[in-house]
């Protein structure tokens, strides 16, 4: 029972971490390796707004999310746009930006346990004999809400449809009057926002530390690759796969192996099925 409940929580956590990454990649084929940095930035900004400016918790979260979106959009508009279409440069540039942000924050004093966010609701509850705190339950709800929300956004709204169009065929979208660069900025802003949502939901469970950035990046990449880069259903499925696998290894092998599971999952997936579980990347076999 414990495995089931914590497996679900862990899986949804992974979904939250990966949503932003997969959205950006899906729309603009940009592997945003600064994802982890944006995650930490969102948490840190919330803390600053709360403790330095004395704002109310809800308002600081909102403000932090908006600023994170802007940072993401600016990152694309001013830097990444220039290396678009050169996959390796995209990876190196975005990774370098992320590295600069994270290590800059570490140097600026972001370490130790001073930086914490309070949980949204205190206390815990017993579910089927397992005690779970409210924050973790909220994680599941917010995760589910974000998944559904994103799905509705993408399939019901104009902007969402434009993004979806770009994800499916960028050239066709261009001929239909969708501005690819503008959409990429929007996607990047949204992706950063999603990283921010994940941050404010997950950080109350621990300290705001730089290492979280690297971990989130690794997990997001793992989930997206196993699920197939750019496929949203695949990402969710892969999150559950890795999530449960992790909980099982923690229970039976020890906590040390938690990250190893994700890494091995990546390697096995890439070797056996390079396009991931649901990857649409047919080029590997089709385009000869």
């Amino acid at each position, binding site marked *: 029972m414990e495995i089931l409940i914590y497996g679900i929580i862990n899986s949804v956590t992974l979904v939250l971490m990966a949503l932003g990454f997969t959205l950006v990649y899906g729309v603009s084929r940009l592997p945003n390796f600064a994802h982890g940095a944006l995650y930490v930035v969102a948490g840190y900004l919330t803390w600053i707004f709360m403790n330095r400016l004395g704002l109310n918790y809800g308002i600081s979260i909102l403000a932090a999310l908006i600023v994170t979106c802007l940072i993401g959009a600016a990152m694309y508009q001013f830097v990444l746009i220039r290396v678009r279409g050169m996959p390796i440069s995209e990876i190196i540039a975005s990774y370098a930006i992320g590295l600069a942000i994270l290590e800059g924050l570490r140097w600026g004093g972001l370490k130790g346990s001073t930086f914490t966010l309070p949980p949204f609701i205190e206390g815990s509850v017993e579910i089927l004999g397992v005690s779970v705190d409210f924050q973790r339950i909220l994680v599941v709800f917010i995760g589910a809400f974000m998944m559904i929300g994103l799905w509705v956004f993408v399939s019901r709204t104009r902007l969402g449809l434009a993004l979806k169009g770009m994800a499916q065929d960028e050239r066709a979208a261009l001929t239909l009057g969708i501005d690819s660069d503008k959409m990429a900025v929007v996607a990047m802003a949204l992706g950063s926002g999603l990283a921010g949502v994940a941050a404010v939901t997950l950080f109350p469970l621990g300290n705001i530390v730089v290492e979280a950035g690297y971990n989130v990046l690794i997990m997001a990449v793992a989930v997206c690759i196993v699920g197939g880069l750019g496929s949203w259903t695949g990402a969710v499925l892969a999150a559950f796969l890795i999530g449960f696998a992790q909980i099982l290894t923690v229970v039976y092998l020890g906590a040390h192996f938690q990250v190893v599971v994700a890494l091995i999952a990546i390697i096995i997936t890439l070797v056996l099925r390079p396009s991931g579980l649901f990857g649409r990347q*047919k080029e590997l*076999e089709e385009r*000869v």
Partner: protein
Amino acid sequence: MSDQPLLTVDNISKTFGGVAALSMVSLEVNRGDIVGIIGPNGSGKTTLVNSISGFVKPDRGKVIFNGHDITGWDPHKIADKGLTRTFQVMRPYYSLPAFKNLIIPLFSPRAKRTGGWRGGGKMGSRDTVALDILEEIGFERDSYVPYKMASSLPTGYLKRLELARCLALRPELIICDEVFSGLSMSEMASMLPLIEKLQMEGISLIMVEHRLRELFRLSNRVIVLNFGCKIAEGVSSEVMELKEVKEAYFGSEEEVLEYV
């Protein structure tokens, strides 16, 4: 050995994500044959070529070349046995001069064994062999053309370069994937005798083509594909008279008249 066909394709099928790209296609190529494969766009011609040359693994069926069952082999092994192909989308090594493009096939185990095109077992300098092949295929030897970067060559030369890359291996069968498309009339006129010359050298060819007039001049037998199935096979002039071919391929009578 001699009465066995060089290449036998036996009932191969391939599906991509539920869509049947090829179903139960069979064909035979004898030594010295030029066999044409025609069919409308999306009829599975390229998939057939890919399945024979190993770039796609067929789901079912057998490919036997020269007595070897090459079904599902890796492309480089198949090429090593003497079955090579050109690509529909030309893919020279753009960053190298034209003659250096041939060094790579000449470096392969097969070329080392056979001595490259017309080599007598032992190869001289690879550069010389490369220039010989290019001259054979219509690059003016004493001009600057063989030394130009592949990225700056016009389409006609690139198509020749693709063929030259195959010839460097001293193949027994070449699959040409649309060598005529995109060529001007004059380029085509110089390409035709080239193919005929290859046939006289004893090389068999499979030609996937859209340019029917040129194909019919060369090949004695054509195979018509539609929706991944073989719908007809026979002597070029007769095949086009078949009703199902006309319908599948052209749709209406008028277009046929326009074409042929």
